[in-house]
């Protein structure tokens, strides 16, 4: 197990370097950060040259990348378009997105798994078919549609929640956005759980559990769920990575100042330090989430652990 963890950690290094370099290359080499800094106005050539020198933009790209990486490791992610440091942007954005992710993941776990277990054990019955159809609808409708519709219904029409989230973004205001963000994954979790439960219900070891004279709740929890939830848990783990970075649409709809919002602003204003900085952190989050999933998988399934 220890060696497995170390090997996985070492594998993360080239992935981290490769992906951050790619982002760095695309943003710095394909755009002009100095021009972007001045917006529509043409920059004064002397000032531009000075900024270029300060930002090491005259050095070869690999050298720029090394300097950038060195700065990152000392906690310096550069300055955003409004003069604020990228680090302080992150400090305000990440807690919001983390809260939003937590809400979304809770929805996936509680509603998704419950629906999946229910339908998996009642295959072919009307409620199973109903839920299955509903998940199909949810998966096929894009987030910006469900987002705006739910925002209109709950926020405007019925006034149950505030249609936009305040800058502090407390948990109670994030319930509806969290649901919107979770919906598609929730539908996948439901379907995945359902299939997995249905498959394991027919498994030989489940018949053994019945033959052992175990009570029904023990058969379902210890034997059926324990096996069926392995793929579901790994899916949800990977989803944490996605949700952390992929909330651009949801955050726009509900005016949440999280990671997605900052990234959107950064891209819109062609602000290289913001984009590269946030993406670097997201790459790390994604890698860690995947590592955790792999470790979790090994913990849950001994066949992986001892392979």
């Amino acid at each position, binding site marked *: 197990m220890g060696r497995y963890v170390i090997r996985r950690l070492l594998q993360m290094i080239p992935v981290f370097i490769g992906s951050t370099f790619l982002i760095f290359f695309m943003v710095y080499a394909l755009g002009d950060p100095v021009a972007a800094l001045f917006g529509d106005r043409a920059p004064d050539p002397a000032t531009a040259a000075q900024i270029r020198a300060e930002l090491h933009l005259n050095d070869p790209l690999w050298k720029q990348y090394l300097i950038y990486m060195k700065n990152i490791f000392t906690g310096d992610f550069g300055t955003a378009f409004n003069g604020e440091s990228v680090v302080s942007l992150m400090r305000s954005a990440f807690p919001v997105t983390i809260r939003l992710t937590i809400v979304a993941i809770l929805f996936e776990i509680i509603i998704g798994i419950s629906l999946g277990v229910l339908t998996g054990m009642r295959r072919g019955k009307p409620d199973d078919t109903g839920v299955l159809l509903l998940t199909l609808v949810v998966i096929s409708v894009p987030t910006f549609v469900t987002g705006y519709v739910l925002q209109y219904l709950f926020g405007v029409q019925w006034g149950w929640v505030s249609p936009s989230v305040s800058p502090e973004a407390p948990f109670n205001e994030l319930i509806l956005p969290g649901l919107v963000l979770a919906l598609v994954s929730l539908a996948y979790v439901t379907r995945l759980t359902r299939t997995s439960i249905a498959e394991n219900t027919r*498994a*030989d*070891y489940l*018949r*053994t*559990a*019945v*033959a*052992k*004279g*175990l*009570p029904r709740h*023990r058969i379902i929890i*210890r*034997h059926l769920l*324990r*096996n069926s939830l*392995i793929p579901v848990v790994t899916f949800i783990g990977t989803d944490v990575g996605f949700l952390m970075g992929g909330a651009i649409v949801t955050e726009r709809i509900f005016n949440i100042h999280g990671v997605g919002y900052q990234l959107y602003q950064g891209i819109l204003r062609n602000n290289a330090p913001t984009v590269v900085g946030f993406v670097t952190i997201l790459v790390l989050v994604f890698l860690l989430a995947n590592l955790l999933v792999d470790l979790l998988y090994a913990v*849950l*399934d*001994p*066949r992986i652990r*001892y392979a």
Partner: protein
Amino acid sequence: MTVIDDISDVPTPDAKLAPLLEVRDLHVEFHTRDGVAKAVNGVNYSVNAGETLAVLGESGSGKSVSAQAVMGILDMPPARIPKGEILFQGRDMLKMSGEERRKIRGRKIAMIFQDALSSLNPVLSVGYQLGEMYRVHQGLSRKDAKAKAIELMDRVRIPAARERVGDYPHQFSGGMRQRIMIAMALALEPDLIIADEPTTALDVTVQAQVMELLAELQAEYNMGLILITHDLGVVADVADKIAVMYAGRIVEDAPVHDIYSKPAHPYTKGLLQSIPRLDQKGQELYAIKGLPPNLTRIPSGCAFNPRCPMAQDICRTDVPQLHPVGTARGSACHFWKETLGE
């Protein structure tokens, strides 16, 4: 969880005289899209303590289904038991509540399955799966259950039981896994064990060891054993009596030696002839022509008639009953005398 309760150990009046298990006129059918598959059509058999009954038959003969009905692990629906009685220690289990039956499973009647790898839970250690029997049925603590599990593994001669109790099923060899299945069935010293093709998935050499172990433990605990198999070789050494099944019925029922020396049903005869023999080396192996019937469309009359070399008109119209042949024997063939006589 503490489920320490006793299903009445008070025997019913005639329990002393009655066999340990008696199956009477058992019918099982499956409702499928293609119609009703009649898997078991009026089966009778009985097993006494310490006795081994081998139920022999091809796949689809209803041998496993009837055993699962006894065990109470059929999925109902699609399965249905329209008729019959399953008397265990004198009480009809088909009339018991689900909870009553559950308490018999594992404790009084245990089952050994064919493929131990798929029949054991892949994500729980064998120690946990063995210990679960004690924790659920006797309310033992996790620690005590583990100690019992190690004891059990020793009983079925798994080397280094103490070190291996935390291992998972996939870490054991096929023979060792089957021993774990046996240990699990044995855990609560049940009165009856049903072994459904316990050695089919194993190497021939390991087969012998596992069968030997099973027979030995059976004798030691004086348990009844129902051995379900399609392998005549396995049966000869361990069984006391044999019930041959075809298309959901028992076609021949006899003490083990009688069947081998003089089969009284053409189907049994065909089965015996299709065993490879050393003195017939080089000759083509005999095979019963045709295929077992589709259970949704069982032929009228004797179900075996389309494949039977002796079939006459009566075989296509009349269902043969189990005719007594001698004392402890029966054959469901209109021409049992002729079959015996040849």
